């Protein structure tokens, strides 16, 4: 058991470090945060990374990637952190949308969209969640109706990261309300500039306008906007979500958070603070290192061609919990004015991270069922056509189950 690189990893690390040493000066001064006002320097930096072969590291070479493995991706991520520079700007596109298009798209779609994701020429967002479908994502109500030679989309989407800056969106909509909810879904590619797409910013408790609410009012799409099969949207959405979960812990890093330096800050503030402070600090530090090694354990499996089980996603709970306690600890140590600084800001971001990619309760149930083998909850909507559920939800008469 050791943390040392294999010879191939070591060679790749030398390559990455060498390139970063001579190119880090071109990087934008800030880390990627969820919201960036001026995207130009970040897009330029992604383009430079791409030209050097550091974007789409795991993508097949045929689509502009490097055809390398998760091990190389991890090595590069750790070298980015070491150099203190941001990675690719369009994380949604490069880490989730791209692989989903590779898995489910037609050759024409791959050729059309993938190169521009890599070069940050087109920026993507995900149009999945809705005001009444979050944890229960398969209950989306946005409808897509087949009209003439294309599709017409009507509905509302919520919590759309980058919605106001995106050129394209990946949309989950209902094409058939007469079958059970998972079966009547289809995924579409939507140009955000299309007529009828209305974007409104959504301000979060942290003060950031990270998210958007998107209204789709009779938006017309062509036939080739469908990704995957008509009625086969759920497997496409699952591919996308699996990629997203996979990158959630990396998301901490994107908030400008480095586990090692966070643990160091907590430790240095606790020394000499008495046994209660030391005990609180130690519990936080232990959790942070557990987080670090949980991700190494997952990585160690992945680099050996195996998948970590659903339990690996519990790291999100540990992360939110430990970082929240760390922020509160630092604020106690530094005084009330620290609430208005970086610690208060990070603290206010944690409840949002908690919900990202699924609520705590959804995650706990999934792990209980898939990993511990506990029985599933009884589901009232099983095998019921979606149309009947919808009627029941809106409380109209005649809805019976």
């Amino acid at each position, binding site marked *: 058991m050791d943390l040392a690189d294999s010879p191939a990893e070591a060679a790749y690390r030398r390559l990455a470090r060498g390139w970063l040493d001579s190119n880090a000066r071109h990087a934008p001064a800030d880390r990627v945060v969820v919201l960036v006002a001026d995207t130009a320097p970040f897009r330029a930096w992604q383009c430079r990374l791409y030209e050097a072969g550091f974007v789409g590291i795991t993508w097949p070479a045929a689509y502009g990637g490097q055809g390398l493995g998760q091990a190389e991706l991890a090595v590069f991520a750790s070298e980015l952190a070491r150099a203190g520079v941001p990675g690719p700007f369009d994380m949604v596109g490069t880490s989730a949308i791209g692989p989903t298009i590779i898995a489910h798209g037609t050759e024409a779609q791959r050729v059309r969209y993938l190169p521009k994701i890599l070069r940050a020429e087109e920026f993507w967002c995900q149009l999945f969640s809705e005001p009444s479908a979050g944890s229960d994502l398969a209950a989306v109500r946005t409808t897509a109706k087949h009209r003439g030679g294309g599709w017409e989309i009507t509905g509302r989407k919520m919590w759309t990261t980058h919605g106001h800056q995106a050129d394209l969106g990946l949309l989950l909509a209902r094409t058939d309300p007469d079958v059970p909810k998972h079966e009547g879904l289809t995924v579409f590619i939507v140009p955000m500039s299309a007529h009828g797409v209305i974007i409104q910013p959504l301000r979060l408790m942290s003060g950031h306008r990270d998210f958007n609410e998107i209204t789709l009012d009779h938006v017309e799409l062509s036939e080739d906007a469908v990704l995957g099969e008509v009625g086969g949207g759920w497997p496409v959405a699952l591919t996308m979500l699996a990629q997203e979960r996979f990158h959630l812990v990396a998301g901490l890093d994107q908030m400008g958070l480095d586990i090692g330096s966070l643990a160091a800050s907590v430790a240095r503030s606790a020394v000499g603070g008495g046994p209660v402070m030391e005990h609180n600090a130690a519990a936080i530090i232990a959790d942070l290192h*557990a987080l670090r090694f949980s991700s190494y354990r997952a990585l160690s499996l992945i680099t050996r061609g195996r998948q970590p089980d659903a339990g690996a996603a519990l790291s999100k709970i540990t992360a939110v919990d430990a970082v929240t306690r760390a922020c509160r600890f630092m604020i106690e140590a530094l005084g009330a004015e620290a609430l208005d600084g970086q610690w208060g800001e990070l603290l206010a971001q944690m409840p949002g991270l908690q919900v990202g990619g699924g609520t705590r309760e959804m995650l706990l149930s999934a792990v209980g069922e898939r990993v511990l083998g506990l029985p599933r909850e009884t589901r009232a909507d099983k095998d019921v056509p979606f149309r009947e559920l919808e009627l029941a939800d809106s409380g109209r008469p005649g809805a019976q189950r």
Partner: protein
Amino acid sequence: MNLEFSREEKELAAAARTALAKRGTVASARAALDGDQLPDLWELAIRLGWPGVLVMPGCGPDGPLLPGLAAAMLLHVECGRALASTGLPGHCAVVAAIARHQRHEAAAALLDELAAGVVRGVFVPPVPGSQPGQWKIQACGRAAGELPAAAGAGQDAEVTGSVTMVPGIAEDARLLVPVRRGDGAVGAAIVDGRARGIKIMTERHYDMTTSVGSVEMHAAPATMLPLASADLRRAWDVMQVLLAAEALGVCEAALEMGVDYARQRRAFGRPIGAFQAVKHQLVEVYRQMENVRSLLCFAAACAGTSAKEFSLACSCARLAADRAAECATRTCMTVHGAVGVTWEHDAHLYFRRAEAARLLLGGASVAAGHVTSESARLAEEQIAEGSAPGEKHAREKEET
């Protein structure tokens, strides 16, 4: 990066699980509460090679820190699962202290005997202070005292002093005692538990499988070994991490019991494990357990490569493991409802083990203090070296 356990390591653990199940150690733990003698597992330990588990080829003055630690951890997880009382954490601590001194004749001879199980080792643990090289005697709820004193020159000495809360202490063993030498420096004495001037008292509190005790030494004859403070510190760290591994085993057993019951017990027309209130409690146990497993990997990875963070990793693991064991054993009882608090059910055996074991080596307060001071020390060291993450780029930005 490789954080997988090897095939040999897993095989050792599987063999341990089978052997301990055959010996019926959980039933023995119960019988001991009713007054029966706990069976001695040392013969079994020798037969399966446990006393020498830390001593691997390549382990020596120039090799990696402790290549056998991963195997030792998996073995201790099994001992915790089965509520086995082996005295192995203290024995392994003694082995860890001297494993790098094979060029010293007396140390090498003792190491051979310990590894073969011909003699048992007991670590008489003081507590490392906040600075490297600093030691104090401390036990949960008791005031700090002085290290035992060693008088005499050369290899032979006489040791005087007393230490309480010594895990796994036995007369039939060699005690490794950190001592204060005449010149004020910290030294390491080996004392035979049956020698003159030694009085050993064993106690078992609350849980019969966790043995602690005290030792009083009045001019007891001892052999001084040329160990540095770092060797004693390594012994203490190894004992911490092996106690963490045992606690993880307790968690595993308690979680399995809870999950099995939640799948089979029905109420309101469905298995109780289908209710979120029950399910989520069990997943919380699993989450804490997996965090402990990650911290054990942290320690094992450090032990394979002599990394600086070894001591930090061991205490992090101990702190998290005791917390997880508390959560696991209490949740196990909660899920079982009233059945879980009966004498007949095994749940309380694990609860007792967790509650008694968590007090060893100064318990959570000492582990927490160590995590904090060690973490702060490493941070200062990193800043002094200018190797903190992101620092390089930040400096360059400032310069340009």
